[in-house]
């Protein structure tokens, strides 16, 4: 359903990529190889060349904000634009239910962002993405700051989304996580995308 053809930008050699419904692809490679740039290019967050379409509709045909809500990128370092956690969630009821699934207390919505730990913030940021129910999720190291138990929770939730037909492109440095989550592996090296594990 997501079809990428000859997508490129400075630091990223042209590449093709197809993601089917319910498919999870793991992307690995050394730091600075261009993994983040690749995710950002698909989400159209930086100027880039090439064509990307979702279910046959080119992204130029869709306003950029709608495109990004459907093909949603989550940065490794989450950003916060208000003081309280709740201000980042349009629907706090739905958010509270999801926080429990992510083993966060529902009271977390009343916290100030600065109070949350790195791992808590990472899950809160993921919750923002999950609540949009995007067709494609582009996740940049979504469990890097989590303990194994919390990471397993996140993997389980993502697995459930895959079963419901979402597609996932996930950057991970952990071969174990890549093996658990993805049938297909890609490797980034000096701005080039290659099939297979490193």
């Amino acid at each position: 359903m997501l079809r990428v053809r000859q997508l490129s930008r400075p630091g990223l050699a042209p590449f093709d990529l197809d993601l089917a419904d319910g498919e999870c692809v793991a992307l690995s490679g050394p730091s600075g190889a261009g993994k983040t740039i690749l995710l950002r290019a698909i989400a159209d967050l930086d100027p880039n060349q090439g064509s990307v379409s979702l279910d046959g509709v080119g992204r130029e045909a869709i306003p950029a904000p709608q495109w990004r809500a459907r093909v949603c990128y989550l940065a490794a370092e989450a950003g916060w634009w208000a003081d309280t956690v709740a201000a980042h969630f349009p629907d706090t009821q739905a958010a509270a239910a999801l926080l429990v699934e992510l083993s966060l207390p529902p009271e977390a919505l009343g916290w100030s962002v600065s109070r949350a730990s790195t791992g808590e913030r990472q899950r809160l940021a993921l919750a923002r993405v999950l609540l949009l129910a995007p067709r494609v999720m582009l996740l940049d190291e979504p469990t890097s700051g989590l303990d194994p138990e919390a990471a397993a929770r996140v993997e389980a939730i993502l697995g459930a989304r895959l079963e419901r037909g979402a597609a996932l492109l996930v950057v991970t440095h952990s071969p174990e996580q890549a093996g658990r989550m993805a049938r297909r592996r890609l490797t980034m090296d000096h701005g080039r995308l290659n099939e297979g594990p490193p």
Partner: protein
Amino acid sequence: MTFISLSFADVALSAVLLVVNAGLSLALSLGLARQMAIAATRMVVQLLLMGLVLKVLFELSSPLLTSLTALVMVLFAGREVMARQKRRLAGWWAYGIGTTAMLFAGTMVTVFALTTQIRPEPWFEPRVALPLMGMILGNTMTGVSLGIDRLLTGAVDARVSIEARLALGHDRTEAMGGVVREALRTGLVPTINSMSAVGLVFIPGMMTGQILAGVAPMEAVKYQLLVMFLIAGGTAFGVLGAVLAGSRRLSDARHRLRLDRLLPGAAED
């Protein structure tokens, strides 16, 4: 009370204060003496030139020369705005956004005041138009430079949170809203503060001038109020125009944050 004329010796005597301060700076090695000397010299040369130019312009009373002078004032104000930015947009934009905003705001407000309130004969009378334009422009310049500086610095500092919003499907107006509001506030605060403090903390320069020239206090107050309203209006229009244009330039039609349109390197001083 009548107007008391000053001799150049009187003026020179007032400069003694600055010389003493420059001496102190040298003695304490504060490194300010050079800057003070350059600024003071610039002030003397610029004002003397302006005196000569105004003398000629007032005698000629030509609409073309008057508007040309106003334009030159705007262009210098634009240069000043650019010089005060820690970060700059690449290319013509660094100069263009502030200058265009001030040109529109300054001209609009000045023409409005000349044609509907002060109504000199003829309406472009340089004796009225140029000082008025100068006062409006001077204040608008401060607001615009503060606003643009805050916008550009703010967008760089808030990059992660702006892009987090964009990635979640917020449009550029929402995503940059916080930074834009902060920049508008920063640009307008000096004007708002001076409106609250005027008359309590200080007697503004124009009113002081009119009183020294022998005008009755109440007449001077009316002029000052008019000018303060014009200044506040002009500054608000100028800041709004410059900050909104700047935020458009920092983003694009695909709702991306375009920090690549800032000059690299100009940041760390």
